[in-house]
């Protein structure tokens, strides 16, 4: 019996050595890289900040890289390069739910811990080890509709200004918004007249916003569930001086939206703390690599400043329960 378990232990040990997943050998000075969707996206500065600060506490080495454009395949060479660099953890905000399946499998076969951070491989969850999302994304759509409703008195024509047509997160939220509007009698007087896409580019988002205003003169509200879109929409409303007629809300960065909130262009908008995603990802990676956290559904662990985190269905973790709403009363408390 003892002999058998010894042999099994040895075999497991050897397998782990062979695949490079030998937990104890890693220690706290492991290498972690975060691959963003694209460069020049301020949202990722905040996530990166969380990684950096956590790594200072833990002792890990952190680097951020991102392709110039957010195309479906543009992250592949970057993943290949990080495998070649011998990092221990690849955290990625995926540009496509499936184009990276093969190369992520290669990374995992080399014993690299693959985390989807701020976005998931929807439908392809088996190609990453775990997923870190700021909030439960199934609540984002309903939360946004409720905020819009409260701003416009639950009546009138509204529109959605999104990112790209294929952005997986935005599409999940928009589907949930449509469902909420159609099914909840509370919103029966709110009519969604259009969903347009600004591709997360300020110019295109501005053009789409202006087109919305001219095509739908009775529009009373625009939900832009993307930081670039909501800032562009607010800019248009501000420059036309129609804040009392068209209400803009959505998901925005406090740093970019502060002026719009202060001058009344935007009453309220929502988001989470992207910083905490990086913070959680780094602590989770440290725990998994060093064997203190088991990456299994239902496991619970403690993270400094965030409290108790539970690994949910499909190995998804959230940094907070509900969206944070920012308005004139609290916007100065946030600086990301």
């Amino acid at each position, binding site marked *: 019996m003892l002999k058998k378990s010894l042999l099994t232990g040895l075999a497991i040990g050897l397998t782990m050595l062979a695949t490079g997943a030998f937990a104890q050998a890693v220690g706290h000075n492991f290498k972690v890289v975060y691959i963003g969707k694209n460069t020049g996206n301020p949202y990722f500065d905040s996530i990166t900040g969380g990684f950096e600060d956590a790594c200072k506490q833990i002792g890990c080495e952190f680097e951020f890289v991102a392709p110039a454009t957010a*195309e*479906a395949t543009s992250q592949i060479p*970057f993943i290949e*390069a990080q495998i070649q660099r011998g990092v221990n953890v690849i955290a990625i905000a995926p540009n496509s739910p*499936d*184009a990276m*399946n*093969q190369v992520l499998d290669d990374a995992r076969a080399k014993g690299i811990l693959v985390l989807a951070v701020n976005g998931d491989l929807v439908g392809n969850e088996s190609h990453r080890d775990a997923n870190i999302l700021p909030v439960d994304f199934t609540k984002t759509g309903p939360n946004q509709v409720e905020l819009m409703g409260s701003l416009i008195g639950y009546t009138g024509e509204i529109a959605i200004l999104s990112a790209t047509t294929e952005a997986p997160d935005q599409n999940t939220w928009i589907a949930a918004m449509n469902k909420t509007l159609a099914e909840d009698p509370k919103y029966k007087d709110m009519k969604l007249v259009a969903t347009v896409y600004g591709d997360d580019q300020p110019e295109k988002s501005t053009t789409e916003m202006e087109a919305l205003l001219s095509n739908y003169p009775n529009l009373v509200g625009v939900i832009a569930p993307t930081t670039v879109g909501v800032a562009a929409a607010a800019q248009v409303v501000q420059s036309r001086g129609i804040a009392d007629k068209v209400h803009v809300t959505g998901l925005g960065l406090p740093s970019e939206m502060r002026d719009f909130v202060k001058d009344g262009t935007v009453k309220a908008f929502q988001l989470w703390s992207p910083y905490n995603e990086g913070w959680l990802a780094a602590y989770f990676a440290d725990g998994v690599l060093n064997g203190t956290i088991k990456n299994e559904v239902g496991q619970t662990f403690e993270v400094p400043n965030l409290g108790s985190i539970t690994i949910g269905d499909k190995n998804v973790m959230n940094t907070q329960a509900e969206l944070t709403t920012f308005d004139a009363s609290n916007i100065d408390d946030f600086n990301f």
Partner: protein
Amino acid sequence: MNAESPAVATGHDAAPPRPRWQVLLIRPETMTLILLILGVFAGSLLSPFFLDINYILRSFTLYSEFAIVALVLTMVIIAGEIDLSPAANMALSACIFAWLQANGMPIPVAVVLGLVSGLAMGAVNAFFVIALQLPSIIVTIGTLTLYRGLAQIIAGDKSIRVPEWFIGVDKIMLVGIPLPVVLFIILAIVLGVVLGNTIFGRQIYQIGTNDVAARHAGIRSARIKVGLFLLVGVVAAFAGIMTASRLGSVRYDLGLGGELQMVLMAMLGGTYIFGGRGTILGTFLAAWLLVIVSTGMIVANVLPAVQLVVLGALLIVSIIATNLIYSRTQR
């Protein structure tokens, strides 16, 4: 040209022939080769992880589909035309292939139909350029948008899966080299021989140098150009289906922006954009140059903005050098 044979010198108004080493050295391909060697050095200096032949070969597979099409595109450019639609063709052919197999068609039949659709796209380009005598740059900018749009109609915003066994053409190794790279090398050798050592190849250069003169000399210029457009079409379709196998899924945005990479490879290899000059060897070397430079910078975590600047600078340097070399040596 010496004193003993004055008749020769007076008969032709010729300059003295250049020494052989100059003929060999002052060629655009030589410059590409030197840049390639410099690129390898720079890459090794930038990152200790760069100089690993397996890594470089693996990285090459990411660009191999574009590189394969660039070889054929080189012949089109030498013949005095251009085709900017191959990347969109790759996407549409791959979408047609993926859609057919997802709807129950056996894979081999779907592959053949994908290739046929690529051929048809080449035929559309050829029809507009040859039969209607429209400039190929305008025609193929049009079809580039058209093919991409059709691909989006077929696939929508979703991706179409291919079966597990069809995935991983880039994981098949022949003597340690990934299959797409092997195919690229074989095609380069075949096309290199065709272009450099056959009458057909010489005719392509003649058409590109002076189409009217070539036609007066009895060269079937229109027929050859149609053939080249068809060849680009079918090779692009092949590359598109290969991409589908590498990625495991097909979307309408497959190979987005690839036409620029292809033209970049041809230009870096010394192909003259106005036709008549260029070699397959040049494009072959340029494809490696592009992979070495991009990979070297990515593995060293160089900022994407810097990467774009370096690639742009490389292209401008190569265009200036190509023009300089051609104007000095052959005019």
